[in-house]
């Protein structure tokens, strides 16, 4: 089912763009957008990675700025950030440019972590629970010829076995020569995340890490399978739906809305933060592309 959904999502989205021989005009300079007061943005979360263990856990804090602004989002450098599992409290120290980190914290499976951010006299708080991810049974590449819907090249593939009788949610990341690659593609919401709703306990064979990212011979290709929470899955679904909605879609255009964060402002609930504080268990493998 997952595969069906992936492929279907991909195709119908792409079709909309092919059919309408529509005219597209850049109107960036003609549009005046209203701006709203800056909101706190959280990027990042806790990751447990047994393949390449992290030296430190880090997150990035910024504030929103105008959508058409050419400037990067301003960093938040004056926040107090801590993470707790209910017994221990870890301080996340500001390292510059809005990056806050801690070297002591080693995330544990099944634990719920709560992040507390104090900024401009208000306290934001949000939690997520770390779920275990299954290993890759096989990690390999396959060459695929280009079609009008997908590029040509070597694609990262894997087999994995979903643990039976537990709800699992997955997120897939691809890295080229160590650098994270993502494409704002309409199919991301169907392709980069998955649930085991229709294949609990089954082995998944020959799935793509990211079917939109081809690799060339000689490149170092890394794929990650992340075990995530249902809340983060829902968040990513909305995130990818929105960022992929870049043209007229045959499959519909859902009305845009703020993607709700899991951070709550305890002092002024109406003044919300954006972004998501996640916890994820990471399975990772790397391969050098050969002919």
């Amino acid at each position, binding site marked *: 089912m997952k595969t069906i959904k992936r492929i279907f999502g991909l195709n119908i989205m792409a079709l909309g763009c092919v059919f309408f021989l529509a005219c597209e005009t850049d*109107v960036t300079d003609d549009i005046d957008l*209203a701006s709203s007061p800056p909101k706190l943005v959280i990027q990042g979360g806790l990751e447990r990675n047994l393949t390449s263990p992290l030296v430190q856990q880090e997150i990035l804090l910024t504030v929103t700025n105008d959508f058409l602004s050419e400037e990067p989002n301003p960093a938040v450098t004056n926040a107090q950030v801590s993470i707790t599992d209910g017994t221990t409290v870890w301080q996340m120290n500001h390292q510059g440019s809005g990056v806050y980190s801690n070297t002591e914290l080693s995330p544990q499976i099944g634990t719920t972590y709560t992040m507390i951010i104090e900024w401009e006299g208000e306290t934001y708080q949000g939690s997520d629970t770390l779920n275990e991810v299954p290993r890759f049974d096989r990690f390999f590449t396959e060459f695929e010829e280009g079609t009008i819907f997908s590029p040509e090249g070597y694609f990262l593939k894997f087999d994995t076995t979903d643990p039976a009788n537990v709800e699992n949610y997955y997120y897939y990341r691809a890295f080229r020569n160590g650098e994270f690659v993502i494409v704002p593609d309409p199919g991301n919401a169907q392709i980069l995340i998955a649930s085991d709703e229709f294949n609990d306990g089954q082995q998944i064979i020959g799935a793509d890490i990211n079917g939109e990212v081809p690799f060339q011979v000689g490149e170092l290709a890394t794929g990650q399978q992340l075990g995530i929470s249902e809340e983060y899955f829902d968040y990513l679904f909305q995130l990818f739906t929105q960022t992929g909605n870049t043209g007229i879609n045959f499959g519909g255009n859902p009305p845009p809305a703020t993607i709700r964060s899991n951070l709550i402002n305890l002092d002024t609930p109406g003044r919300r933060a954006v972004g998501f504080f996640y916890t994820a268990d990471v399975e990772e493998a790397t391969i050098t592309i050969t002919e």
Partner: protein
Amino acid sequence: MKKTVFCILMCIAHSVWSQNEYTISGYVKEFSSGEALFGVNVLIDNTMGTTTNEYGFYSISLSGGPHTIVVSYLGFQTITEPITLEGDRRINFDLREESNALDEVVVTSSSKSNDVRSVEMSVATLKTGVIKKLPPAIGEVDVLKSIQLLPGVSSVSEGSSGFNVRGGSSDQNLVLLDDATIFNASHLLGFFSVFNADAVKDVKLYKGGIPATFGGRLSSVLDIKQKEGNLKKFGGELGIGLISSRALIEGPIAKGDSDEGKGSYLLAGRRSYIDLFAPLLDDLEDTQLYFYDINLKVNYNLNENNRLFLSGYFGQDKFAVENIFGNTYGNSSATLRWTSVLSDKLFLQTSGIFSDYNYEVDVLTSGTEFQWESSIVNYNFKPRLSWFISSGNTLKTGVDFTYYEFNPGEISPLNNSNTTPQDFQEKFALETAPYVDFEQKISEKLSLQYGLRLSFFQRIGEESVPVYENGEPLTYNPTLDLFEENTILSETQFGSGDVIESFTNLEPRASARFLWNETTSVKASYNRNYQYLHLISNSASATPLDIWAPSGPFLRPQFSDQYALGYFKTFKDNTFDFSLEAYYKDLRDVTDFVDGADLLFEEDVETQVVQGDGRAYGLEFQLNKNSGKLTGWLSYTLSRTERQILGINNNEYYPANNDQTHEVSLVGIYQLNDRWEFGANFVYGSGRPVTFPTGKFEQEGLIVADFDNRNGNRLPAFHRLDLSATLNPKKGGNGTWIFSIANAYNRQNAATIFFRERTQEINDVDIPLGTTEASKFSFLGIVPSVTYQFKF
């Protein structure tokens, strides 16, 4: 309850009954084809009158003695006939079309002289004759695009045949083709409608004051009647256009030596061929893209009083890319109707209807080929009795039975792929709606039409219904401002035919007309409508992948109350008429989506839908010029449509997707001489509401937009001009040329504006650049086209 209603009706009937009256009744037909004429005025002694029903039948009761009957219909020669009445009489009339001579040409946008006198309000009738004279939008005359030129009716998006009536969403229109419900009225993703103008006789749109004889949708009824076919002689028509070609044949059945056949038939077909141009574009080389449709109508006079009609429609769209994807969708419907004149005052019609909308998607990516099928089938049985009690007093009563089968989806593997077959549960429902509708003349000045519809909707098994924690599929969490899905605790199994949930609702309807003087009237109406089916589509535009969900344990029926007030005036001997209408509509339990809804392959759609309220109000103004060399109309609509739904826009009212403040249509048809005719229409509309981002942030390597208010911004205003010229054949010739230019000054109207991250294509991959842009999409530039029509 039923007893009381019956009793009241009998009292009314009694009060309007007078003694020593005789009844004249009969059919009014078009002379050359024998086609029944609907809405013809039958006027007696210039004081009382009636109009023919949709089968061309009229009945009127008079005192004995001498009378003058005047039978008139715009565009036709008036018949004046003196009679002396000594008993009930059956008189049929054949009306001749007015000749095409210059000063006599009459084009009408509706049965106009009727507007002032009739109790109906918020109703527009368009004859195919008029529709065909309007400039075609994309090289093809289109019934649905023509009605979008009327006040209070707007298009879902440019070039789309989807329409909104008085703030209603497009699924709130009841679209009937010879009484059969059409679930998806669009071809080619909405650019064309499924109605072949050649086969359509007339189109009647009820925007308000919907009589009790119709039900099931909130906002409008679009009643489309197919032509019956020529009773007198065989004929045909061929049309060749750039986008599609069409053919039609019609003729009498069992004519023998008589003047008219005992029956007639009509068969029409269309096929588009845009895909022939596809190979010209590299990207579309392996693409198939076409639609076709077939209309059939047969009618047969069993005897003077009994007629049988069979009408059918079959249409299909195909869109496929070789080895990758295929999509087929279409409607089919069949109606068998029997009309019977039981007595001079009683007219019975009974219809049995089958209608089916289905779509199929083939995904042909190697290894995981599969087919997805979905359908809605419904069977209707609709008996209706009309009782022409006396002049100005008519009672209609009947029952509509509908049985629905919803097949939300079935997945089967293709080409031996390893896809697991899946079958979503079918859903079944039964709708029973008895009604009475009464038109009553209180005095010369005051006439009323009122009625009651009782709708009874049952969801029936076989179905297994989930039991949710908290009893509901979704719970709103005010802290996080989002809906959370509740866990399914267990499932309740309902056997075949078991009632899962039932709804009973009363739908009162009423209209009143006060005739100020011969040329002026004031009208008011109220109607309540219930709708038990919900279109679950996350798109404002028409997509073939519509999911219709019936009301049930987790989805309440939606309903509306509409109040309308109107002023109607004709002047210069009916050359001009003017109408002004105001309406207010309250909508309850309309559906919208929770933010981030995932509808694709969703079995439990109720978990993705929230229900809330809406309101719509507006003013509609229309000035028609009905006769002369230049005919046409000017219409203006000022309106507002809003929604309020928990979890959207901080729970405050927001403009609905189809809200349009100003809308102006100017339509003109100019008859230069015998041969040349010109048409033009100009449309202006305020921009539709859209939600523009108010901020940006980064997440997982992508730039994400942040939003404040739902639909807080507007697209730029929309305007366009379409032109056409028709070259009619010389006397004795039979070929017609139609030249047209749609969007004559090539206005790039914004269909939508997208905000997104800029990307750069590197090795076939769109790499995000970290900067943002706004991009406007327009569907159609200038579209010239030419069509050749040939009659034989």
